[in-house]
């Protein structure tokens, strides 16, 4: 199969935007394990012009960039590379908070085709928080070299979200990736994320605590997820709830327009 990008009809619409972001640009988060070529994907999509700073109050690097596709502007936020969203490390907390409160229009989870099983742990955890997900199966060239075949249809079907094969280094498949992201945001592709059910007693407990959390912090997204983490004994969520930090984060997210303004002001503070 050969790709000729120049004759590809939609190619003209994909342009690296650097950090010039227009009004109403869509917000896309880039998550993934370390060493999956996440940065290659980020660089290939946004080009050399990036905004690099730290996450507010943290020593963790935060990179942002933009691109345009079919006349629509996208802002891409590179989340720290993490193996999970469960433990309380700084990186995982940043990623988790961004998915919960940054409320991206779509999240790309970059995975390593040669170590898919390990990478799926993070994918499944992201799916618990947000439904608008595209799985980017990167390093397909290394997988081919190692004789590993990935059945992307089966993967998409099982996960309930689209999976796109890529080789970020050579930009192979990135166009498909962006188109899929656009279609997920438009709703052209409907996602039905895999969320394994819990035993009935756990489900009941989650439901009850979720209701209490919603009463405590009105307008909170993903109350069920929080309830679940609280039952699991997640000390960070507990702390955030106790100290009112959670309420602040919810208040800060506001409407989409305000949300972007907050992000910009956070940048300014760095």
């Amino acid at each position: 199969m050969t790709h000729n990008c120049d004759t590809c009809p939609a190619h003209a619409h994909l342009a690296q935007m650097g950090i010039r972001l227009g009004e109403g640009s869509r917000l896309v988060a880039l998550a993934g394990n370390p060493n999956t070529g996440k940065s290659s994907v980020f660089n290939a999509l946004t080009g050399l012009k990036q905004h690099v700073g730290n996450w507010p109050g943290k020593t963790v690097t935060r990179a942002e960039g933009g691109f345009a596709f079919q006349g629509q502007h996208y802002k891409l936020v590179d989340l720290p590379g993490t193996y999970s969203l469960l433990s309380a490390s700084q990186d995982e907390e940043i990623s988790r908070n961004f998915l919960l409160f940054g409320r991206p229009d779509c999240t790309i989870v970059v995975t390593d085709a040669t170590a898919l099983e390990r990478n799926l742990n993070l994918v499944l955890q992201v799916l618990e928080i947000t439904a608008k997900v595209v799985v980017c199966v990167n390093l397909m060239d290394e997988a081919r070299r190692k004789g590993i075949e990935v059945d992307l249809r089966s993967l998409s079907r099982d996960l309930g979200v689209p999976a796109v094969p890529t080789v970020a280094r050579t930009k192979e498949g990135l166009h498909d990736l962006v188109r899929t992201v656009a279609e997920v945001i438009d709703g052209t592709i409907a996602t039905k994320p895999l969320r394994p059910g819990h035993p009935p007693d756990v489900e009941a407990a989650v439901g009850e605590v979720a209701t209490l959390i919603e009463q405590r912090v009105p307008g909170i997204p993903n109350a069920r997820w929080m309830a679940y983490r609280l039952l699991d004994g997640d000390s960070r969520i507990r702390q955030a709830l106790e100290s009112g930090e959670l309420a602040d984060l919810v208040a800060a997210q506001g409407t989409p327009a305000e949300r972007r303004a907050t992000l910009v002001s956070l940048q300014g503070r760095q």
Partner: protein
Amino acid sequence: MTDPIARADQLRASLPAGFRDQVVESLYEEAHRIAGRSVKTGENRRIDFDQRIDRLVTSPIFGLPLMLVLITGVFWLTIIGSNYPSQMLATSFFWLEDKLVAWSAAAGAPAWLTGFVWNGVYRGLAWVVAVMLPPMAIFFPMFTILEDLGYLPRVGYNMDWLFRKAGAHGKQSLTMAMGFGCNAAGVISTRIIDSPRERLIAILTNNFVPCNGRFPTLIMLATIFVAAQFPPAVASVAAAGSVVGVVLLGVLFTLVVSAVLSRTVLRGEASAFTLELPPYRRPSILRILYTSLIDRTIFVLGRAMLTAAPAGAVIWILGNIDWQGASLARHAANFLQPLGHAIGLDGVILLAYVIAIPANEIVVPTMLMVYLGTGMMSDVTGYDDIRRILVEENGWSLLTAVNLMLFSLLHNPCATTILTMWRETRSTRWTFIGALMPLAIAFAVTFTVATVVRLLL
């Protein structure tokens, strides 16, 4: 309104025990199931080969011994390889110094200027290059090959249980490995540790691994003093072994101090982490040469030269301004003599350490310049001459050499590292502790060794 936290605590108690493990387990099972359906792995020899190497390299039985053999080999090659080039460099630099002095005298430059520029600044630089360049040009490429192969994460894996026992983070072994290159870089690399408590421990103890500024000192002492105690056939191995011994001692101090800190002022549990063992890669020769020679050797040498030039000037001034019948350097050395003697060293060595605070690299050159500047002037061209000056003219013994190695391993970090500690912690208190705790330990250890040895002999 019911408190969600309290209610969650209540409900958790009513849920089946092991519910939390179940959650993680079901996640892994699901990932396994999906991957099993969508991934087909063909026959692959490379992966098998990688796994077989990993089984050996990270084996509970062979892992650590193999690591010791590897680093001993690296030091051994460095020691046998650097003696002769060092000699050649020194010979040519000092031949040139004589010529330069003669020329500038012939050109009518005043004696103080000739002395200051050529016997001071130039000689400082020449010493640093002659003593440091050969070991670095051999050690760094070998270290970079190990790094490039992907061996360092395996070291981290092998050492994890030790750090866990010390109440510190397993990734501390990686920041420690960075410290072998440069302690300031090691302190910055502690950013990979998430818990502030464990990160602080890693910052405070990074100094206990000898950085490459200190390796030349250790290697030189091992070559001159330790090797001389053994028959020539095994001398270089013995020298390499003693450097490894010093490194292991450094690791021991790292672990003990970490354990003490995590049980006293920085109390807490070691946290779990994921360490990915990357596939073995064929090292790229060009990149290794670039990283080891440009990024490391030239960088370190450049920094050493920047501090050596003013240090050379300071030593020349101290050695050539007389006050009450003796040079200032002599006065300073005499003032430090009682303290130096108590810890098995002497005043000149301590003076060299004071002058070398900006960069540890120049300790040996500084020491030699003070000895030479205040004693008789002689041409020093190699390790044999250095040995003669230290032992015959300045009364060094094996105790002096051993204690100097210990002091060099344990003493305060260089100015750059101290500054980096402050930048990373933003705490004057912890920076002070990071600078003074090693110094106190260094004095305590060398004093104990000196006292015990003197009582026994």
